[in-house]
């Protein structure tokens, strides 16, 4: 070849090479694997209109006893956005306390809380997404975690592929390991790493990193079951919080899809009324293990509170001297 054509071909070679490099840097936006995962999930997302489930949380603080909290969860989808109500049902003093969340395009969910004591619906600041939910190791924003359809709230990056599966089983499934960074500045996390299987797109594990990029929590999804012939949902979520030393086991039961929920039920003005509804399903019977551990007679209660008050008054008076 003559000199001109050498220059041309060298230049075109360099250009091809350079564009290849550029492609590498942009793979977060155009990675075919991420695109495939996203389109698959989007297809799945549109196929059910609503879902409800009962959840039993078993919370164990470091060195502490187990505590049980029960809630009901109702979710309604409209396109890729979802609205969710959680109503507490056990222990009985939490009955009717409910939380309403409206998912938004920006990833910052709107939150409301209903306080049954004085019938008040309170609009919370988006900061509350990072609050721990009813004392468990799940924060309000972790609620989204089991909805793979909410991946649009994150920036995604493909890390690797490896074998995975449920705990205690052979790790024979093929999982994508994907890093996701929350788009919302109100998130309590700087990044998360999720393991999601390539065939049925079920999440098996998520690791959470706090704002200081310290690894703080890990969540495992177990006992996946198929509902209504096509929806795979985990029955057990197990969250380990390395920061607090606590663990929460969340047992999801009674999944029911496509119940015909109406949009007005997820309006904050209706949170009062909706928090009361049982739906046609009966709740799980209350775990009565701890019931009546303090079988005080009413008279004993009076005497006890009198003597407590007396000693308190003495202590306060002696402090004042």
């Amino acid at each position, binding site marked *: 070849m003559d000199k001109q054509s050498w220059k041309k071909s060298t230049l075109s070679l360099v250009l091809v090479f350079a564009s290849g490099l550029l492609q590498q840097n942009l793979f977060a936006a155009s990675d075919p694997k991420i695109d495939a995962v996203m389109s698959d999930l989007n297809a799945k997302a549109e196929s059910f209109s609503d879902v409800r489930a009962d959840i039993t949380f078993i919370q164990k603080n470091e060195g502490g006893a187990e505590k049980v909290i029960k809630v009901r969860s109702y979710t309604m989808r409209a396109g890729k956005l979802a609205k969710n109500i959680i109503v507490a049902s056990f222990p009985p003093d939490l009955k009717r306390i409910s939380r309403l969340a409206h998912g938004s395009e920006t990833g910052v969910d709107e939150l409301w809380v209903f306080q049954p004591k*004085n019938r008040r619906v309170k609009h919370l600041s988006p900061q509350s997404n990072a609050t721990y939910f009813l004392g468990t190791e799940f924060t309000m924003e972790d609620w989204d975690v089991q909805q793979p359809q909410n991946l649009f709230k994150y920036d995604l990056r493909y890390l690797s592929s490896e074998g995975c599966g449920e705990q205690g089983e052979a790790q024979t499934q093929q999982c994508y390991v994907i890093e996701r960074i929350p788009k919302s500045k109100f998130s309590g996390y700087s990044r998360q790493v999720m393991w999601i299987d390539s065939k049925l797109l079920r999440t098996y594990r998520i690791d959470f990193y706090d704002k200081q990029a310290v690894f703080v929590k890990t969540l495992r999804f177990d006992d996946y079951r198929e509902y209504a012939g096509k929806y795979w949902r985990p029955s057990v979520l197990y969250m380990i919080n390395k920061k607090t030393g606590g663990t929460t086991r969340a047992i999801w039961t009674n999944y029911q899809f496509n119940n015909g929920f109406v949009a007005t039920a997820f309006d904050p003005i209706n949170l009062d009324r909706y928090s009361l509804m049982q739906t046609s399903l009966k709740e799980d019977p209350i775990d009565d293990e701890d019931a009546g551990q*303090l079988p005080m007679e009413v008279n004993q209660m009076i005497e006890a509170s009198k003597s407590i008050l007396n000693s308190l008054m003495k202590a306060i008076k002696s402090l004042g001297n």
Partner: protein
Amino acid sequence: MDISRRTALKLKPIALSGIALSTLFFSAYSFAGEWRGFSQAQARSFFNDPMQTTPNNTPTDNQYISLMLQPEYYTDWDEGSQSFTFVGMIRVDEHDEERSHNDIREFSYLKADVDWELKAGVSRVFWGVTESRHLVDIINQTDFVENPTGDDKLGQPMAQLTLLRDYGNIGLFVLPYFRERTFRGPLGRLGPNVDTENPIYEAKNEEEHGDWAVRWSNSLGPVDIGVSHFDGTNRQPILTFEPVLREIPTIRPRYDLIEQNSIDAQATLGSWIVKTEMLHQSRDREGNGFGFVGGTEYTFVGVLNSKYDITLFNEYLFDDREQQTFQNDLFMGMRFVFNDASSTELRAGTINDMDGEGAIASMELSTRFANFWKVSLLGRMFDDTRLEIPPIDVTVPASISGTTDLLVTTDGETVLATDQDDYVQLTIEHHF
């Protein structure tokens, strides 16, 4: 016959016929109704003897034990579009016969459709966004003897129609029967000794004067706003010495007719919540008045790398209406949530009068144990708090000023003082 029995007796025929009707109506359906509620033992201990002398000059031991039961029943049918709610309460106090009272907080039927709802019966409705004082919350009467903060409300007979529209929600309230405010008895503490047997009504048909209200509410971006109008008998009584046909004048509650317009709004701006409630009240008798509460709320989530949340509240209170405690005050409050699965929580707050006339401080710690038991310990202090009674022509005899915690100030005004009522309260509840 104390006020609670008087009111309860009037409600009895309504309640009984309601129960009869509902039993007939509901027996046609099989439903999964649910009983719930709690029982409570409460012990209050006051640091000082009351300023008053009690009748017969026998002081109480400054300790009050009371028991309370609040049963609730709920059921729904027709896929949740129709429901019935019952909430009742009864409290028995060892010394204070007025504090021993009962109430039907709720006894109502609700029919909900896609864009409207109808509620009929006795119920409780909450309007408002502020913490220190629920200024615009007018529908329900305050059960003042139950809780001096005014957070507990008596049930209100009502018919409420709510229309859900694109431009917001419209609530229409018909309030056919008026509930009088509850006050302590002569042997009780906290608040004045009011002669609730002899109220004064501006309305000719007294408690049967029908009141009504209308409210529009909507969310516009980060702002939640409500605008309300109320027409009828003021829930807040003016305490006055107008004498009855007796030798000894007593403090009587006067319920005037008012028109009240109010706005309540909250803006959620990132980590800050800014909120306000304001009202304008006009009366035939005394002219107009304006009330305002405004402030902020900020939550620190997971402080110091822990599970704890701390929320800080700051609010300013203003009120130029007659006989108000919070005319020009500043509230600072804190809520410390432990997030420990036992709902352990510490709340503390102070309200300080900017004119240097008084302060109230409270602190409360509450937690749950063994799943069904809730315990809370509360301390509250009053410093130089005052409330004006309209000046009267008759000299206040010593026997009256003794029984009602009155002070006559140097400029001749009659003023209520509650400084002697600092107390500590232990509450144990069993929830079911």
